């Protein structure tokens, strides 16, 4: 059972890193971006290509995946997303679905529709067991442990940037009220662009990290989009601890659900989500008085 918890936490942390960019975009630009998963997919494919065709070591691929997705994010934000910030949510949904479809079809064209196999370096394979021979056996796959560590470091880093740096306070001001923030001299456009880039970059990193655990094929953006949206909807967009907790909850629920009641699997997650959203429409962890 502890192993399940461990796996769930790993899954949840991964989902958090994948989805945190979406949370901030949603909270900052009030933009529903259903193409967020495409940035994750980009990171995954970049890693696969670099590793398989150019023999780049795995650890080096990770920051490169981040960069690739971040750059793509900067480009698309400036050219395509920015004109749409003020548009109604319906238009944003239509636009980002279109973008997602383009990404899916492009991936299919360039990389083929099969699942990509990740060749993990030897030191990441294997598994350690603690408390073996007890009911509380904790089986830790080394790769999942690696994921947890990397994501935890990133989370701490993010929290630090948000609360202790000037950029972080500019970002928080812009989230609270973009008009007032720009009246205070904060260059909101730069904040938006930088945030979008980092969010997309993190998604790319998550895609690279997750390729082994979640699988990587052209349908990735659409398959996992629902999970990212659940993290945002349940976790709220006013902090990053909310989405973190939501992602962990989701990860654990999904893993546990699939293990204990395999017949229903993902069904549990959806029902739980709907129940939570009916009970707390603004998200489970939103502080009172937050913007909707």
């Amino acid at each position, binding site marked *: 059972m502890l192993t399940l918890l461990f796996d769930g936490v790993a899954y949840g942390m991964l989902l958090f890193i994948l989805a945190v960019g979406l949370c901030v975009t949603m909270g900052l630009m009030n933009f529903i971006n259903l193409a967020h998963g495409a940035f994750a997919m980009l990171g995954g494919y970049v890693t696969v290509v670099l590793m398989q065709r150019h023999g780049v070591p795995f650890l080096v691929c990770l920051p490169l995946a981040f960069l690739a997705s971040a750059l793509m994010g900067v480009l698309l934000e400036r050219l395509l997303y920015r004109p749409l910030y003020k548009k109604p949510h319906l238009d944003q949904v239509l636009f980002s679905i*279109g973008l997602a479809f383009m990404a899916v*079809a492009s991936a299919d064209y360039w990389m083929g529709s099969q699942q990509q196999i990740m060749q993990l370096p030897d030191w990441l394979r294997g598994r350690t067991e603690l408390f073996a021979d007890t009911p509380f056996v904790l089986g830790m796959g080394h790769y999942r442990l690696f994921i947890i560590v990397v994501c935890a470091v990133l989370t701490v880093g993010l929290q630090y940037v948000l609360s202790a740096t000037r950029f972080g306070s500019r970002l928080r001001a812009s989230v609270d009220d973009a008009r007032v923030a720009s009246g205070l001299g904060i260059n909101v456009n730069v904040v938006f662009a930088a945030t979008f880039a980092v969010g997309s970059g993190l998604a790319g990193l998550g895609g690279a990290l997750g390729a082994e655990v979640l699988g990587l094929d052209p349908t990735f953006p659409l398959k996992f989009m629902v999970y990212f949206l659940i993290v945002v909807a349940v976790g709220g967009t006013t902090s990053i601890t909310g989405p973190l907790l939501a992602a962990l909850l989701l990860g654990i629920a999904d893993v546990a659900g699939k293990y204990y009641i395999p017949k229903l699997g993902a069904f549990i997650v959806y029902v739980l989500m709907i129940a939570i959203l009916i009970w707390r429409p603004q998200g489970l962890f939103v502080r009172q008085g937050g913007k909707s």
Partner: protein
Amino acid sequence: MSAHASLLRSARWHPLELVFWVLAFAAPWVLSQHALIINEIAIVALFAVSLDLVLGYTGIVSLGHAAFLGFGAYSAALFAKHIHPDPLLGLVVGMVASTVLGAMCAWTIMRGSDLTRLMVTLGTALILLELANKFSDLTGGADGLQGVMMGPLLGQFEFDLMGQTSAWYSLSVLLVLFVLARRLVNAPLGATLKAVRDNRLRAMAIGIPVIARLAVVYTVAAGMAGAAGALMAQTTGFASLDVFAMDRSADVMLMLAIGGVGWLYGGIAGAVAFKLMYDVIANITPQYWTFWMGLFLVVLVLVGRERLIRPWTWWSAPARKEEAP
């Protein structure tokens, strides 16, 4: 013209509308080799019109409208298979089932933000997908529900392979429900919905019970989608899991994007345009048609539909809306 007359005039049928419907009903006879496609278009147009009621008249951004399509399809198919093969009875069953589901869902989506609503509607469709998948003894699971044999329509007209009966059946249902929707939209109820859509705060401030109205329309739209689903199952003899899929919801949103949200013919125009586009593009690049569809959506939203259909405006700056001082 007096105020009274001018208000009534906008509700009256325009001659072009009558022409359109006459042509639509003539099509299965004149273009008899395309009767199957006409049937498909009629069904998907009905689905699009029902979604238009939600997107265009309630402002609820729903990604899960396919839930009602699928629920209606499976209800009608199961009814025909296990209880009675009469098509009209099955149609009613499908509609009632979806209406009930819609009423239940309406209650869940009234609170929260656009994102909350998006997720709840999407979640509902996905839950139904999972349920249909898991209860495969009943629904046929991933293989779908096969062998739905329909009795003759009105006791007289057999569903033939040519598809003409199907086409006229679907067109008739489309027309009846369309007339219903049209009256609703031009009635005081429709006007209050437009008010809610334009300015919810003010709508409340003039006494409109916003949530109740939205719930009513959402439920009606669910019933209409259920009718489309029932038609689909009945005319193809088959119900499969992909009625619940995101693809369906996305396709129909594209239709409305093309045809226009907020006017009922948008669904029909969009359905026709979509099918034509699909046939043309799928013939050229069958595998990557989603790419071109995605590109089209992106361009459509960036440029705006009005400008897209007026190529001469492509090279000027977009018009700015006046803001009150």
